[in-house]
């Protein structure tokens, strides 16, 4: 049974078409947006779509979501707490 970490990192890579990135490249405490993984606003939207589709999490407010997306760790915590 895959851990949530492996599963979620894999889904991020797939949903965002991240080339040459493997799950081990996604560091838990580095920023996801801007620096670190370097995601942008289009990625934020597609991340939200993936969370909705695969974890049943509905995000109404993108600004609030940005806080949850600060790093991989905050994102995983967010998913753990809110998944359906």
């Amino acid at each position: 049974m895959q851990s949530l970490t492996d599963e979620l990192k894999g889904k991020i890579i797939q949903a965002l078409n991240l080339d040459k990135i493997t799950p081990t490249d996604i560091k838990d405490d580095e920023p996801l947006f801007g620096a670190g993984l370097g995601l942008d606003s289009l990625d934020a939207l597609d991340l939200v779509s993936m969370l909705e589709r695969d974890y049943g999490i509905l995000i109404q407010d993108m600004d609030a979501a940005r806080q949850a997306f600060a790093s991989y760790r905050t994102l995983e915590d967010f998913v753990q707490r809110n998944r359906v």
Partner: protein
Amino acid sequence: MSQFAILAASFISAEGCGNDRTRLRRWPETVAAALQRGEVEALSWSTLFRSETSRFGRMDLLSRLGLMAVELLDAGFETWEPAQRDAVGVCVETCSGCTAADAQFLQTPLAATFAYTLPSTVLGEICIRHRFRGPILCLLPKPGQGGSLEAALGWLNRGEADACVCVACDLMDKKFAASMLSPQDAPGGGWQSGAVLIGRQTGASRKYPLRPDWLPRLARSLVASGIRSAA
């Protein structure tokens, strides 16, 4: 005599790729077969270039083709001053447009996919990568009609740009073309991408009369034969 000259040319198709200095190089066997079948996704940035690129994987295939053609020019844009890049005009012409990306969006409606459902997104990607902020144009001509070379010359002659990058890129799935268009209208299907860099240059040795349908053919012929120097 015109004071403007073609400084570099590049070309990519199932035949091969290259610029006016490397000439047209055939693909390795492994890649060639896939490309002959129209699998443009077989072209990976890292097999062609040592430079880094941002988010190539999420770009649609048309944008990848256009961006690669500009990279193949090997013009050293990364050494150009910001003021120089501010004065680079970019003109894209595409007969196929982005129908391939459109079909992809209908399949998977994602934000990143939607961003590529405009024929001009390739122009945006080129400008973002190279920080070009000059005048812009994106034309959808009929096959053989061209237009970007004329537009670029106009910018240069009127002093609206100091250099221009003209790119012709096309991507049309043969089956899709056949399903949508009658044989006389279909642009044939297939894919290719060619680019030229035009800038200020004196003392050039040869002149090419400008014909509007020439960008893909011009790019290919310059790559195949090279551009002769004055010396």
